[in-house]
């Protein structure tokens, strides 16, 4: 063929439809904002029920995670996330979905090698690097407190 790799790369870029960034960002803002608003509603509710602020905050996380787990198990979460995009993935609900969905998917390989081994296949890197980042942050903080 007469086309070069560089030429073909340009042709492929031109032929491939790009993501609709403006629409995607707007939807992510709306859905992500919606989840945060829902979280705030739960916080207000728990405070109204006379929980202290720290406990109420933890209860908000637990509620959102439980809701996501139920919606994922009911095969609904991904259908909403299809529209919400990053707005559904970045909040704590996205993390819950990324743990529940492989647990469901790999049930066919059993409780140990399936659910147990594969549950953190997507969330695992987040846990590893967030733990590593917190250690690094702790070290920096410790270093500055020396002086």
């Amino acid at each position: 063929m007469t086309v070069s790799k560089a030429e073909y790369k340009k042709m492929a870029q031109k032929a491939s439809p790009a993501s609709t960034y403006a629409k995607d960002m707007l939807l992510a803002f709306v859905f992500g904002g919606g989840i945060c608003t829902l979280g705030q509603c739960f916080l207000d509710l728990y405070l109204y029920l006379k929980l202290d602020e720290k406990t109420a905050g933890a209860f908000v996380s637990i509620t959102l995670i439980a809701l996501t787990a139920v919606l994922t198990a009911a095969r609904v979460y991904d259908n909403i996330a299809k529209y919400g995009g990053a707005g559904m993935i970045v909040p704590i609900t996205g993390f819950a979905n990324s743990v529940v969905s492989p647990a469901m998917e790999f049930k066919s390989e059993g409780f140990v090698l399936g659910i147990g081994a594969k549950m953190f296949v997507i969330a695992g890197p987040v846990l590893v690097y967030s733990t590593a980042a917190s250690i690094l942050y702790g070290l920096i903080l410790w270093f500055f407190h020396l002086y």
Partner: protein
Amino acid sequence: MPSRVGKYTIQLQTNPAVLGYAAVVGKKEGEGPYGQAYDQCHADTTLGEASWEKAESRLQNEAVHIALHKANLNNTDVNCIFAGDLLNQCISSTFGLRSLDIPFLGQFGACSTMAQTLAVASLFVESGAAVRAVAVTSSHFCSAERQYRYPLEYGGQRSPTAQWTATAAGSVILGTRSQYPTASIGLQAVTFGRIVDYGIKDAANMGAAMAPAAASTLIDYFNDTGTNPQDYDLVLTGDLGLVGSSLLDDLMQREGKDIRSVHNDCGLMIYDREKQDVHAGGSGCGCSAAILCSTILQQMDAGKLHKVLFLGTGALMSPTSSQQGESIPSVAHLVYLKS
């Protein structure tokens, strides 16, 4: 005996006969534009099985059984079966066909497997190594997703260039022409493609990765045979989808072989792209298998299509190679069918 024409093409002198064919599909495919053409549409994507892999195996098993039934043959009448799929170690084929008791040769050509198995089966029949041979392939959206991408319920977004792996299987039974002189469809020639890699790395844009392989094999075939696109009723590519099909048309135009008036793509045919939310179209071994083994061969039987170049296209990457940053090598195999 088969004879070589030009550098890459093999002419089948005896014109091996198509004795039977069948396509079995899932729910989404059954709701597609060719829902009426398939032999069986399953409303339940699990096919009542405990795992997606078992469901895919069953698709393949059913495709062979229905084709045998339509050809009025038993499994013992078949000398050899060529089968493949997308799963590691081709388990859909091995588990799906283990009860058939037919000498088995597993094939892997990614989504080009239908063309590959059909081409190899035709050479076995042409050479006399088999009186009757079967070519069968399958793919299943759910088993492919879990191996290549994310869990089904994960809330990730799909890229606009991504294609939807078809839940489908198709099989063709070939027989020696001397025993089946009246069979309407025969195989005239095959061209095995070379591995082509133009540096596309995006596993969510396989159409773009495969288009140069399709162009390369088509050009080889036209050069070897001295024919032109307009000599055929249809140039049917496997699963280039929206992006790959337009790129193939552009590449062929550049080479002076304009195929636009005769080109169609199984990936664009199997779903209603807009209504069924499949982005750039369908893909998977079962995509081209189901389209070929339903509407195309039916139209050839009915005399509506006569000369068809079927070009299976395969992206030969794995999740490992993609994670290691490799580009996507591709291949395309051509089979010339005539009725």
